[in-house]
């Protein structure tokens, strides 16, 4: 059980009002909807479900897991550097290099940079936790989230569920605005994703470093298409 304090901090971290700009991004949905690949709640739900089961978000979450675990083992700063610290930067660079498109990479780095800055403003002592990632190195959202969650004492299990839920919630919200759909349809969809999120979280926890594969052809093409889409509501 999370302490009351950790639970409240989790709610703050996964809130759609967290000022990291998540609502600016549709992760390819805007292009898919314009092309008619997604037209209603069913096709939106199918897209998000497949992404949760096989897509890029599984690997992204697996990196959040690594950041959370490495943060948990973080030694005091006076014994820097250690092999542990190298790894955090390794995963951060790995994630930057393997993003499917410029747009997805910039999204992750913009949101990660905003979260890092916010956390430093809220909790100056979190500075040492971010030390493995030099200020000049852009920080991915998964890394900043994992470190922030660990710093606030939110256990890995709750952090992972929260991470996946806020990701799904954000995509549904983008879908509602674009298709468009009513708020109740969106809430139904989010509720229906519960078993998928629970199941996939267990799968993601089992992923070893050699299992970090995803099937992201559709996402890559949609995001590349969005980069050159003529009119856009969402950021590229």
């Amino acid at each position, binding site marked *: 059980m999370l302490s009351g304090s950790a639970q409240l901090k989790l709610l703050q971290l996964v809130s759609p009002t967290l000022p990291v700009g998540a609502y600016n991004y549709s992760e390819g949905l805007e292009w*898919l909807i314009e092309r008619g*690949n*997604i037209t209603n709640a069913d096709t939106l739900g*199918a*897209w998000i479900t*497949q*992404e949760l089961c*096989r*897509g890029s978000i599984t*690997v992204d979450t697996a990196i959040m897991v690594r950041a959370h675990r490495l943060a948990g083992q973080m030694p005091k700063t006076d014994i820097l550097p250690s092999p542990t610290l190298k790894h955090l930067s390794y995963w951060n*660079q*790995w994630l*930057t*290099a*393997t*993003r*499917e*498109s*410029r*747009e997805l*990479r910039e999204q992750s780095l913009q949101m990660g940079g905003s979260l890092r800055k916010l956390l430093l403003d809220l909790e100056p002592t979190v500075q040492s936790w971010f030390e493995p990632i030099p200020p000049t190195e852009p920080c991915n959202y998964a890394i900043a989230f994992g470190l922030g969650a660990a710093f606030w004492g939110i256990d890995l299990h709750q952090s992972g569920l929260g991470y996946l839920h806020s990701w799904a919630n954000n995509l549904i919200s983008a879908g509602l605005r674009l298709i468009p759909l009513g708020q109740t349809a969106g809430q139904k969809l989010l509720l229906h994703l519960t078993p998928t999120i629970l199941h996939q979280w267990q799968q993601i926890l089992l992923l070893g470093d050699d299992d*970090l*594969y*995803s*099937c*992201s*052809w*559709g*996402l*890559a*093409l949609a*995001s*590349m*298409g969005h*980069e*050159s889409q003529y009119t856009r509501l969402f950021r590229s």
Partner: protein
Amino acid sequence: MLSASTVNPSAPWQANLWLRYDRPGHRTRMVECLVQAPLKVQRSFYPDDTGQCQTMLLHTGGGMVGGDRLGYDIVLEAQSDVCFTSASAGKIYRSLGPWSEQTVNLEVRVGASVLWCPQETIIFDQARYQQNFCIKLQEQARFKGWEIVRLGRTARGEKFTQGHWRSSWEIWQGDKLIWGERQQLIGSEQLYESPNALAGFTCLGTYVDLSRSFDQDLVHQAQEIIHSQGRSPQFGLTLTATQGLIARYRGNSTQEVKDIFTQLSQVISP
């Protein structure tokens, strides 16, 4: 029932190929070549007067079966310039369990240049195939290449609805990973049709050009030129973190993807 045409009955191959090139004068030459069957290398040839050496890689065994492990270790010394092609489409047969694995390690030293454009790989339904590319670039070294995969023997109406394909790419510049990907497709009727995966298409292509930096305008121009030809397949372009270029194709024709990539390389050539 498994027929002889789809499961190769011979014992698995464990074969390696080592190649080294240098460039003492104008021409790049192959200075070391150690090859184990079923891999083979054709004699180098020079299609033009740029000094680029063209090497054709062959697999004399027909294709890869479960348990096969093939390794390519290739070194390009400073300033050398090599284009790699292959004689025919690669085939990955269905497997009763074990994986087939192919690993390519390319070491590209200062100022050297690689063009990697093999024929497509046909991955049979029920195949289990892992491929790994690891490319290490020294200063001023350049890599350009493509990978084309056909999922299922579509000429026979076969769909890739069972089996497992994994592809790992890592391109390092010095000690920094500048581009990578970890793609996989686990065969299923659902993923075959899903817009997240194949969307009913059978052929996937990736084009990578890390030989120089590109700007966003050129990406848009190239995208428009390719799209203006009214082709039906899906095609996208984007930039890597170091301003290299990545293109993706999802369609049905290996000839079409080669044509598009060839045209792309002309459109973006300086």
